[in-house]
């Protein structure tokens, strides 16, 4: 009853091609965006902005990047963390070495560097498929983290190999409080999410999906495999690179190469599995879920329930819960939280009637 499209007629092509063709969807989205922009920066405490909301957005962006590659184009990548590292270190070096370079330009250059690296490591995808390709992206993961650690030039010869993000200033306005950093992240992430949502509906997005479903068949119907796959790697790495830049600049402030290890890559992979492969919404849901889960577990452990769990088990509970959830989602709902959301909407269409 509440959620139904009866009576909403599409009278023009624009109406037919909207991202959210149903009015209720538009209202919900508008409310969410308004809440994120207008309410959150003032209502949320500094801790929430700094430690929860900003990282959720940053990881959602990285997950979105991986989702474009894995969910849409079907190329499994285990090197997301490394591409984020390229983005973070490239942004740092561009801002450091080019005097007076605007922050946003530095960030985009960082993203482009990540895209270039992504294309290089995507080249094997033309010949190697499936598991073998996943191993190739592991090569990227280990090589890039090693290179960033071994060559001190990347971290400007800091003794510990840690880079400290410069102050963010755009047109003389300093982004120095958690609320401002959050807003900056939000603007960038929303724009890129919108772009991704649209990209998935274009020729490019559809050829990605064709390649994912079967690349030989896609080639037969005239999709240039090389261009399509490399573009997927480039766009995905660009997103990851921007996410890496934001990770360093708006979230942590100081990062080291080892922080972008295999664990980070797996974390982002889990986000898209739990959130939903091949969906933009899924990246956000997955990121929020994976980042809030440890917080939730921690809170639970400090209540009376937590007292029942032995201490040795409690410290490993996060690993166990993650593992179980991944398996659970893959078995029960391979399309992730997004699919649950869709099922929920279907239910709302009919409610309170049975049919």
């Amino acid at each position, binding site marked *: 009853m509440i959620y139904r499209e009866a009576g909403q007629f599409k009278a023009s092509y624009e109406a037919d091609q909207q991202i959210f063709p149903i009015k209720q969807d538009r209202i919900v989205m508008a409310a969410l965006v308004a809440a994120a922009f207008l309410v959150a920066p003032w209502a949320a405490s500094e801790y929430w902005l700094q430690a929860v909301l900003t990282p959720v957005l940053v990881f959602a962006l990285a997950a979105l990047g991986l989702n474009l590659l894995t969910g849409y184009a079907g190329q*499994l990548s285990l090197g997301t963390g490394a591409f984020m590292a390229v983005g973070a270190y490239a942004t740092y070096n561009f801002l450091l070495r080019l005097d007076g370079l605007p922050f946003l330009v530095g960030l985009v250059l960082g993203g482009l560097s990540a895209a270039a690296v992504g294309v290089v490591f995507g080249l*094997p995808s033309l*010949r*190697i*498929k*499936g*598991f*073998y390709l*996943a*191993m*190739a992206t*592991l*090569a990227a993961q*280990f*090589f890039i*983290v*090693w290179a960033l*650690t*071994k*060559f001190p030039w990347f971290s400007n010869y800091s003794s510990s190999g840690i880079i400290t993000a410069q102050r963010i200033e755009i047109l003389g306005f300093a982004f120095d409080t958690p609320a401002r950093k959050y807003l900056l992240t939000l603007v960038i992430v929303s724009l890129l999410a919108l772009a991704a949502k649209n990209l998935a509906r274009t020729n490019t997005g559809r050829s990605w999906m064709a390649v994912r479903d*079967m*690349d*030989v*068949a896609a080639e*037969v119907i005239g999709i240039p495999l090389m261009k399509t796959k490399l573009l997927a790697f480039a766009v995905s790495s660009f997103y990851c690179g921007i996410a890496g830049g934001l990770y360093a600049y708006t979230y942590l402030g100081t990062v080291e190469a080892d922080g972008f290890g*295999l664990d980070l890559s*797996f974390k982002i*992979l*889990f986000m898209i*599995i739990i959130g939903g492969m091949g969906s933009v919404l899924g990246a956000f849901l997955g990121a929020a879920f994976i980042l809030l889960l440890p917080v939730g577990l921690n809170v639970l452990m400090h209540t009376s329930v937590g007292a029942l769990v*032995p201490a*040795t*088990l409690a*410290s*490993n*509970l*996060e*690993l*166990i*819960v*993650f*593992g*179980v*959830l*991944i*398996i659970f989602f*893959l*078995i029960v709902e*391979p399309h992730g939280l997004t699919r649950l959301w869709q099922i929920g909407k279907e239910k709302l269409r009919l409610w309170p009637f049975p049919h």
Partner: protein
Amino acid sequence: MGFFLEVLIGGLLAGMLYALVALGFVLIFKASGVLNFAQGAMVFFAALTFVGLTERLPAWLGLSPEWAGLFWVALLLTAAVMVLLAWVVERFMLRKLVNQPAITLFMATIGLSYLIEGVAQGMWGAVVRGLDLGIADEPVMWLLERYNLMISKFDLIAATVAGVLVAVLALFFQYTKVGRALRAVADDHQAALSIGIPLQRIWVIVWAVAGFVAIVAGLVWGSRNGVQFALTYTALKALPVLILGGLTSVPGAIVGGLIIGASEKLAEVYLGPFVGGGIDSWFPYVLALVFLLIRPEGLFGEKHIDRV
């Protein structure tokens, strides 16, 4: 020349140990088409369970910790635990994921590896433990005196064990009824089912065998580097071996292991100093990648033909 030989032989022996872990992957992949990322976690779990049992069994059973049979009792119990693990994995994971894409199964095993790591540490604690198999890590005197080569006795014995294990497994695959069933399942699930091979029991068996391989790998690696979380990274060492040798080939795992082990050590010694060292984290992967560009299905892998 002596030094070169020493590095080469050291690398080859280390390669046998990589092959040992890779073998676990190959077994499961052959029988069920699952690339089991949790193999590293299983190595860790097996080693930790074994060490934990040797520590606690004397207290539980009222035996003296010096008792010689303790090793075998602990080994037997660990093997039983691995069989149990195989059954649980089959019952609660594989059975529910039949007919899913291979990538889905792969990701499920990543989840499984987290789960096993968590359970292992939850059960036995996260402290690093030593493991003494009673084999000294000293150079073989005979080789040292005669050829002036420093070859560790421990490595030599470990490599021999790995070699024997491979031979046994190859014979098992070739000549037993279960082995024949395993090969049938690897060939074609549906055809195997239709002639009455119980697929699910085969899966339990193959996971259990991979579990036994994990025990051996865990004991060898554990006594080398201590039983600690880092044991799970042996999986990452084994992956390039696996892609180099081909996912479905037991001899491929051995040859791949030897190639990776030798070239990794040689590269570290002769190439490492020029780029700052530590290249063994990525060198095997890049090497395997180069091989793949020439032969996309690995050295001994089955040639894959794409059909629409």
